[in-house]
């Protein structure tokens, strides 16, 4: 019979999310427009509950005949992803209301996307992985095109869809090769199987597919366009929760399924990491649209994270979690900053429009500056420690070339980060900004607090947690 305890222990948060989403569909169909605004809070609450849920069963387990298996490593990622998804959802209400596009399907799609994230994190079988990836991607395509009357959003959705479908095809092709040559779809059996050439082909194709999902170069082409075109709250979601989840899944796949053949894929990952850092930091230099700029910055940051993946499970897993956690918090905060910048007649997206923010809205400006510094990895702020951990993991693993690229890329990226700071603090102010929604302000301040000060109190704890979480991989 079905073992409910194991199910709850392993994928409890996901089951909860999907149950809530299904209830949401029914309630939405009955209440129609009256549910729109409530659904946002309802969904955010469900996500926070799911986050708490994933902490409660932190040790994880195995269920559904080995289709899913969780450990502390993925549960840590689940927790962070769910919390961020909750914040991303909570802060989107004002934006959607102003654009007249608030519909309860929005929160349902975020919930279902989060379900997909949870499933890929829990996957212990290629089929579960693929199904989860599809759930996450399909909801993301729709979210990207959510403003269906805007040409840019539709273009973003279509581009994302076409390229994403190709990447899914790659992933599936790779997975089928791996299955064909190892004789099983289970991670554990594949890890134990004899690594034949055919399996390595499959592995490379899977890396291609996964690299697309985390938007690492050279599979990054879609990122700036989608970031620019999609509605800002959606981009805030894309840049935080799914980034965390997909990257950890990437690591999880490499570590658990191909952990023994690290010498086969280390170089590939290093090249992808190096390319991403170069493309990301050079590409961002010339951008004038803040969302595009942040898109390139996310490409570069995925490059940094991939360095930790390349360092291998023992050295890289802990730093990966620390880096990603601090990065996605800063990333979400920055997009909240973009959400907060609003003038009469719409959103502000050109970076020159930020001029004089310091004189008009000092608190917001200071918070954003902290977040930017943290993302740039300057010493007194949180991001520095994340980068430092990745850097030392890379050095320890002996990956000197990428470590050097990492340092250089960080220096280059200072160029555009500091430009933002300069415009905010010293340029002449343009028009007045409008008032900001409560949840957005709170999120920006919270993110800035964490990145600026609070991390001091828990950075050691965080690396401790991440370290022990990474141990879950071994066990």
């Amino acid at each position, binding site marked *: 019979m*079905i073992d409910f305890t194991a199910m709850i222990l392993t994928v409890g948060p996901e089951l909860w999310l*999907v149950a809530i989403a*299904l209830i949401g*569909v029914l309630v939405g169909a009955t209440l129609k427009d009256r549910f729109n605004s409530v659904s946002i809070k309802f969904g955010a609450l469900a996500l926070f509950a799911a986050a708490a849920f994933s902490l409660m069963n932190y040790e994880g387990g195995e269920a*559904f*005949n080995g*289709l*899913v298996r969780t450990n502390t490593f993925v549960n840590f990622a689940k927790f962070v992803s769910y919390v961020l998804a909750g914040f991303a959802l909570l802060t989107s209400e004002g934006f959607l209301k102003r654009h007249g596009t608030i*519909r309860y*399907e929005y929160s*349902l*799609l975020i919930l*279902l996307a989060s*379900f997909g994230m949870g*499933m890929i994190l829990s996957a212990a079988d290629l*089929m*579960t992985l693929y*199904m*989860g990836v*599809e*759930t996450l991607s*399909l*909801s993301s*395509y*729709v979210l990207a*095109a*959510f403003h*269906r009357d805007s040409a840019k959003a539709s273009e973003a*959705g279509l581009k994302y869809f076409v390229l994403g479908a190709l990447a899914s095809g790659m992933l599936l092709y790779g997975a089928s*090769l791996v299955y*064909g*040559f*190892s*004789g099983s779809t289970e991670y554990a059996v594949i890890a134990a199987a*004899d690594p*034949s*050439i*055919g*399996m390595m*082909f499959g592995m490379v194709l899977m890396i291609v597919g996964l690299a697309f999902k985390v938007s690492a170069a050279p599979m990054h082409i879609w990122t700036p366009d989608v970031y620019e075109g999609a509605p800002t709250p959606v981009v805030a979601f894309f840049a935080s929760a799914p980034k965390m989840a997909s990257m950890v899944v990437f690591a999880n796949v490499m570590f658990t399924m191909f952990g023994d053949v690290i010498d086969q894929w280390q170089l590939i990952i290093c090249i992808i990491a190096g390319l991403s850092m170069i493309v990301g930091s050079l590409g961002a230099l010339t951008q004038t649209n803040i969302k595009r700029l942040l898109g390139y910055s996310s490409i570069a940051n995925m490059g940094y994270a991939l360095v930790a993946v390349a360092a291998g499970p023992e050295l890289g897993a802990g730093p990966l979690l620390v880096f990603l956690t601090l990065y996605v918090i800063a990333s979400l905060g920055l997009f909240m900053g973009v959400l907060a910048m609003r003038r009469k007649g719409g959103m502000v997206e050109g970076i020159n429009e930020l001029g004089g923010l310091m004189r008009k809205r000092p608190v917001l400006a200071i918070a954003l500056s902290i977040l930017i510094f943290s993302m740039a990895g300057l010493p007194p702020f949180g991001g520095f420690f994340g980068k430092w951990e990745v850097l030392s993991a890379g050095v320890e693993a002996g990956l000197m070339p990428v470590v050097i690229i990492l340092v250089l890329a960080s220096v280059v990226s200072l160029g555009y980060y500091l430009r933002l700071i300069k415009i905010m603090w010293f340029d002449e102010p343009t028009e007045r900004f409008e008032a900001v929604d409560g949840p957005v302000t709170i999120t920006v301040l919270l993110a800035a607090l964490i990145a600026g000060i609070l991390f001091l109190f828990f950075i050691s704890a965080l690396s401790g947690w991440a370290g022990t979480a990474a141990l879950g991989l071994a066990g």
Partner: protein
Amino acid sequence: MAVIAFYLIAAVVLVSALSVIMARNPVHSVLWLILAFFSSAGLLVLIGAEFLAMLLVVVYVGAVAVLFLFVVMMLDVDFVELKRGTLRYWPFAVLVGIIFAAEIVLASVIGTADMETNFDASPGAETNAEAIGQVMYTQYLLLFQMAGIILLVAMVGAIVLTLRHRPETKRQNIAKQTSRRRSDAYELKDPTPGQGI
């Protein structure tokens, strides 16, 4: 006998698959595609997976390809015009094709996996349908349900992206129509002559 049938059907599959990309008219392409699906179902019958074969016909040929055909017929794009530029991409496409083919050949030549393994279409059961039924709702319950969730996402997505409420359109309310009684519509009066109501 089975071998002859296999080669015959496999040849039809290959020829029709080739014709899908060679056909000048997109509608012909889709029709060839349907033939390819149908013959693949024939191949499935040959290995004893008759349930899968019928599902392939019902789902892909009976439903999916019909929608393909719909779209292609409705679009009425001048594909000859569209295809004019594709010549430029040919070298690249051929390159990618060769790389993929080489990968498969390399993998299957060098690969250690046992390619000769016989395939059992209905492990542990008498018929193919039974074999699938035994694992679908037990061992692979999670995947089955997730597939349902993916379809739900697709449905919600399609509704979000396309449904528009047009308040000005008139709709038929069947329940209201059928629950209407004669007394709701008119009443009988008995006016006195010369007075009116």
